[in-house]
């Protein structure tokens, strides 16, 4: 097969609305949709019977670690993990070293993404210089740069000073930007290790109260209402947070919210192992919170699923819980977990998944060439999943440079079969291919979990 001969006939698919259909792709664009399409002579036929096709997935929250922490991940390795997970666009968080708080850094990351050629990499700019929460970074310069940054976040840190937050929300109105807040009141979470509750009390790990997250969400929805700007809440984890967002949306406040796959599946019970593979910021919460998050995602209170893919080298996790780094891998398992927790439970249709994982994140991020519906003439960004096939997660087979998946050894349902980015199969039959690879598939560097 050739990647440059970019004509494909995908057969046996089910569209998000449940219709059985074939798809034809030529030169990066969807050229035909319909039952039993006739094969053109130069079409490569891919049989995808039993699979569902979605608009290519868009992640609004990814840590790629480059520049600065290339031992954990690079733009290239993260892009490959993304393609393998069904993504066609990802958003590189600003907490790199140096921090992405200038036009120079975001342009570098953007260019690295384009040269990797597996997904579009949209850099997120820091709200404040050095993520220190004190002085605004060069927001305008980043917005006007080649990277065209629209999403700003100090993720990892909370923009906790209410005046700084107010100014940032106001400033991004100039170009229709959005502030993505990591909601964590620092004074209530100093040294915090895990969700504060029954389990933390017994484990003797310092508690991370739900109110530390909810208090900032409540403050910021009021602030954004006051200045009439646009707010996005990163990785919502608590039932109370869902309630606040629901209330704010009912009032017409311009706020969106995301949930991670791991907060849809895992609870703080996993901390009983003291294995820091389950240590994450914000922390895993209770079963009641998990249920509220699923419900919120189903009814649209929570707009999107975002991975918060956070690679770390082995030594950052092979240690005592309180010494370990926060964060877990997410890109390669996200769609399976959404399938398992939302689709198979009847909470979300595939059209709902398309919205929460492609259309809505592209809209929030302002990613114009992404998040379109599957229709003739649209760019061929496509994700194909077999929802009934299952697999056992193996951390040694991930495409990411790091191995800190909390799902190692777990049986997950739903296997990504193919990802098409600009009409090229960046992931197909267990192989990863860059759109720049000239004529032949590049060797899969990360292997496959199949």
């Amino acid at each position, binding site marked *: 097969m050739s990647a440059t001969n970019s004509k494909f006939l995908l057969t046996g698919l089910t569209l998000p609305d449940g219709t059985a259909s074939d798809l034809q792709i030529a030169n990066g664009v969807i050229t035909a949709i319909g039952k039993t399409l006739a094969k053109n002579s130069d079409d490569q036929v891919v049989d995808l019977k039993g699979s569902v096709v979605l608009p290519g997935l868009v992640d609004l929250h990814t840590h790629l670690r480059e520049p600065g922490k290339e031992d954990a991940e690079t733009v290239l390795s993260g892009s490959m993990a993304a393609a393998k997970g069904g993504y066609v666009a990802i958003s590189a968080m600003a907490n790199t070293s140096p921090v992405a708080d200038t036009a120079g850094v975001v342009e570098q990351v953007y260019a690295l993404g384009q040269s990797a050629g597996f997904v579009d990499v949209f850099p997120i700019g820091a709200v404040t210089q050095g993520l220190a929460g004190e002085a605004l970074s060069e927001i305008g310069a980043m917005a006007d740069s080649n990277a065209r940054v629209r999403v700003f976040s100090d993720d990892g840190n909370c923009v906790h000073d209410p005046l700084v937050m107010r100014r940032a929300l106001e400033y991004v109105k100039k170009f229709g930007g959005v502030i993505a807040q990591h909601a964590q009141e620092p004074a209530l979470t100093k040294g915090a290790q895990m969700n504060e509750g029954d389990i933390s009390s017994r484990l003797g790990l310092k508690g991370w109260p739900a109110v530390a997250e909810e208090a900032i969400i409540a403050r910021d929805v009021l602030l954004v209402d006051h200045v009439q700007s646009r707010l996005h809440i990163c990785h919502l984890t608590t039932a109370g947070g869902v309630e606040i967002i629901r209330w704010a949306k009912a009032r017409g406040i311009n706020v969106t919210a995301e949930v991670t796959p791991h907060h849809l599946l895992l609870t703080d019970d996993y901390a009983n192992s*003291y294995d820091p593979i389950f240590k994450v910021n914000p922390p895993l919460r209770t079963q009641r919170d998990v249920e509220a998050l699923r419900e919120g995602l189903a009814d649209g209170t929570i707009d999107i699923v975002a991975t918060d893919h956070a690679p770390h080298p082995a030594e950052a996790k092979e*240690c*005592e*819980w*309180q*010494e370990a780094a926060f964060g877990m891998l997410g890109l390669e398992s996200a769609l399976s977990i959404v399938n398992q927790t939302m689709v198979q439970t009847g909470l979300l249709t595939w059209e709902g998944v398309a919205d929460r994982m492609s259309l809505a994140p592209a809209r929030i991020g302002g990613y114009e060439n992404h998040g379109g519906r599957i229709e003739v003439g649209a760019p061929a960004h496509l994700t194909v999943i077999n929802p009934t096939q299952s697999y056992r997660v193996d951390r040694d087979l991930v495409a990411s440079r790091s191995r800190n998946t909390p799902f190692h050894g777990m049986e997950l349902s739903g296997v990504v079969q193919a990802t098409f980015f600009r009409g090229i199969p960046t992931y197909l039959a267990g192989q990863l291919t860059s759109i720049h690879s000239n004529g032949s598939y590049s060797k899969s560097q990360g292997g496959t979990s199949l």
Partner: protein
Amino acid sequence: MKHLLSINDLSKSEAIAILDTAQELARVSDGPMKKLPTLRGRTIVNLFAEDSTRTRISFEAAAKRLSADVINFSAKGSSISKGESLKDTAQTLQAMGADAVIIRHGASGAAQRLADSKWMSGAVINAGDGTHEHPSQALLDAFTIRKHLAKSGEDLTGIKVVIVGDVLHSRVARSNVLLLAKLGADVTLVAPPTLLPVGIESWPCKISYDFDSAIIGADAVMMLRIQQERMSEMFFPNAREYSRYFGLNSDRVKVLKPTTLVMHPGPMNRGLEITADAADGARSVIVEQVSNGVSVRMAILYMLLAGAPEGELVGITREVGAL
């Protein structure tokens, strides 16, 4: 039972067996010849990543009285202070052939990490991990209570124990609540609300903010250490106010029954959580707790390293009896 990481690792009968074994071993410590050959040729490492005097010495004495070879490995001046990871330290100890590691560590769960990892294969004994647990301390406290207030072979049903102080940061309190409840005692924790963890409602004990009412009818009062660093963290207004509401002083001692035990795991802050007359008074068993600690830790080492838990009790009785 391969490791002792938490009181949850022990069944009730195993806990009673440790207390009974300790009682037999206490006879050895009281005798002229304090040593048993049981663990001859076995290597036990005292891995103390956090400062400690009494626990380390107590375990060392216990191991030596069972004829084990003891290697002390303290944080200061060791590779740990040079930033060596727990993993590398564990692999070093494994390479040196440690049969058991007694670990004291500032991080909650460090002992369990050591036991669950593939870094070493020996037995792991938790000698205090962060604010999680300190099971050998709870066992020696239960031993002390039983010695005075119950019979050997029995549990602690109906005995009323009041534990007072910084429960939030106390590994001693966590292990004691679990063990005393397992043994049937009636446990009440007394502290200002700031020093009780959120989630404590799920613990098998009662909670009180009022020392004076909780103390009535108590069979044992266990005082917890207040660390100096809590002063600056706004858990209570100042030391004077803490002492007034939560300190054991002579007025409160007067309310106690003559048989009530006054206990403290040490080290004490005299004048803060306990006054000198309470600490040194007739009801105090604080010094005795220390000597009981050696017997209880001998029992723990014996049970983990010398063989099966209950069946071996006969053997130890014979060994002791033969002296």
